[in-house]
């Protein structure tokens, strides 16, 4: 009995340092953040003026914040769906042991190991309005009238799609590839013997079997999209136009650039709640049983 209690104590003692650090660096700042969000504070005085839920009321009336949520949703929906579609397509292709599959696999995955900032700087060159390759290709294929300053404020959000997809495909490709390679070969063989077309094989064998990957991918995409910051920040040199903000960049701007710590922290609390709720909903929806789960 005593031995069991000692073991529990030992276990607790082992957990204690991590608990102390977690409390100090996560729990305490989170509580402090909530307390700051109830105040009017520039961040340059020891005193804060308590204003209750005033900051939260202003967040709800903030048109830039609602625009930022819209941008977050756009960044989840468009590049997200395209990334998954391309990743699944490439994974299906590579799963059939085509020549040089290993090289393709590395090539697709490579952008994913690069820092977002490096990728963004690289794409800034690609999008350069005077000598960028993107406009160059448009001119080459006779679409010269579509050339523009892609990183100007009116096209900045669409300009993020391509680098996001380029960077994200490799990661999801690996997930899909692993899932496809787990599918017993006999299923494909049997379907072929029965005369199933490529599309029917994909629709009735591959797609149901990789469905669990979609669940994980959806959660990653929603969380990543709601926290989107880096591309916008680098592409706009830290000065996004009001219409181009996401929740994270707007929170940073209010807190750091405009010195409104109380309001910025209220934005961060709202953002936390939205991300938390969105991840639960996404996981619940993605976890719903499908017919093939039976």
């Amino acid at each position, binding site marked *: 009995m005593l031995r069991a209690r*000692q073991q529990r*104590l*030992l276990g607790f*003692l*082992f957990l*204690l*340092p991590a608990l*102390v*650090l977690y409390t*100090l660096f996560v729990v305490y700042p989170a509580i402090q953040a909530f307390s700051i969000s109830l105040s*009017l504070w*520039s*961040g*340059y*005085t*020891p005193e804060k003026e308590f204003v209750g839920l005033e900051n939260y009321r202003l967040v709800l009336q903030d048109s830039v914040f609602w625009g930022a949520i819209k941008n977050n949703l756009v960044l989840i929906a468009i590049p997200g769906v395209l990334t998954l579609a391309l990743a699944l397509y490439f994974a299906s292709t590579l799963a059939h042991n085509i020549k040089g599959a290993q090289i393709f696999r590395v090539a697709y995955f490579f952008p994913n190991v690069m820092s977002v900032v490096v990728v963004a700087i690289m794409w800034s060159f690609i*999008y*350069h*309005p*005077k000598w960028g390759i993107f406009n160059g290709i448009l001119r080459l294929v006779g679409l010269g009238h579509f050339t*523009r*300053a*892609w*990183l*100007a*404020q*009116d096209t900045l959000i669409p300009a993020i799609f391509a680098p996001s997809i380029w960077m994200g495909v490799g990661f999801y490709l690996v997930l899909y590839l692993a899932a496809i390679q787990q599918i017993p070969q006999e299923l494909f063989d049997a379907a072929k013997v029965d005369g199933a077309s490529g599309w029917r094989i994909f629709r009735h064998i591959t797609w149901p079997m990789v469905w669990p990957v979609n669940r994980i991918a959806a959660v990653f995409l929603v969380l990543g999209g709601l926290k989107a910051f880096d591309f916008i920040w680098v592409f*706009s*040199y830290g*000065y996004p*136009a*009001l*219409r181009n903000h996401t929740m994270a960049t707007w929170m940073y*701007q209010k807190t750091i*650039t*405009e*010195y*409104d710590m109380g309001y910025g922290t209220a934005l961060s609390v709202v953002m936390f709640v939205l991300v938390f709720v969105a991840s639960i909903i996404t996981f619940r929806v993605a976890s719903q049983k499908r017919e093939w789960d039976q």
Partner: protein
Amino acid sequence: MRASVTYRILGLALGLAGLVLLPACEGTQNQSGTANGKKLVEVSVFQGGYDIDFWEACARQYEETHPEVKVNLWGDPRNAEKLRPRFIAGNPPDLVYASLPIWILIAADQCLPLDEELAKPAVGQPGKTWKESLIPSAYTDFSQDGHTYALTVPYAVFGFWYDHRLFRAHGWQPPETWDDLLALCEQIKQAGIDPIAFQGRYPGYIQSLFETLVERTGGIEAWLATQNIEPGVWKSEPVVRAWEMVQELRRREYIPKAYMGLSHMESQMEWVQGKAAMIPCGTWLTTEMKSSLPKEFEVGFMPYPGVSGGKGDPTAINAGGEYWFVPTKARHPDIGADILRQVMSLDNARRFVQDKKALFAVRNCDDNPPAALKEAVAAAHSARFMFSSHVSQWYPTFGSAYNEVCGSVMSLDMTPQEAGDYLERAAAAQRRDRRTRRHEMPNPDPFAAAYAAVEALKDDPVVIVGW
């Protein structure tokens, strides 16, 4: 035995946690105090285009004349971020040059009034007070309720920059009026050169031209009203007209669309390489581009042109300064202020102008400016007054809207009327915002009252007859 091992493991874990925590405390170290019988004075400077060598030399100079003081000067491009927690903790340095939100610091009582210090003698100029040795905007730009809380030290004036060789080769002349500018731009465009480069990814760069055009069109009173966010002013005729004029440059492709996707360095490189004939910028431009400017490049500066029929003064010049201040909670505020007085001696100011090819807020320090600065200095000297915008610093939320409008107007996404309406709404919201202190910009024209009196006399025939 088991308990002993447990406690050792626990001790080790807590020790490691302590090691993790220790560096976090480093940022709040105060480097002022006393050591070896000397007073340690800490000076934090922004390490930007001017680097820190000049400021370091000033610190060593101060130590020579004040052997009881050891100046610990450190520079960092992000010193503002490092200083923020120290202002909250109440242990700031003794003298600060950083892009901190000065008006918020003044409101928070974090900046020491320098009025008494300014009455002390100027270093190296017998018979003159420190204040008398400075250009007026040095001590008026950051004053509130009659007190000076920060001093402008390096400053810049804004205008169009060009290469004399290019203009000479084509027989082009700097324009006097806006119509002249449009005609010149057309000639430049016909010659296959971009007339004006623009730092489009930082659309706020257009503000100096826009605000000058507000002044040129509606007079300094119109510009003052915009600074004081007076009701209706942001959609008033001079403001909308100024937006029309800057947008005209984009509409006619005198600033080609491509520039909206270029950063400040990229667009300035287009100008350096002769692909663009002019660029609107402050006097830091030549320092910023010094590693790229070819030796044969003959830097020219022209003030923004006047507007025919406008109410403004065509000599008035838009300026902006970088400020130094002494924190209220500094350990040695008196020495901090004294070091600043020494930094702003006439000799140091002259050396700065020569070495850094930039302007310094001390009278007569630019009597013999370097070639790249000659025309800018001439424009500054011949200006009846300078005017520096504070509206974005005073009201950061309005500043974001202002910046947004600059981008939208220059991208042709917003008409000048829409820009006026948008900013008027932003100004109205700012006026209602009880969270931000309202500021009052004094008229930068020292002769404004006299001119107004003369104008009033002109309008009063009885008085004229009486004369």
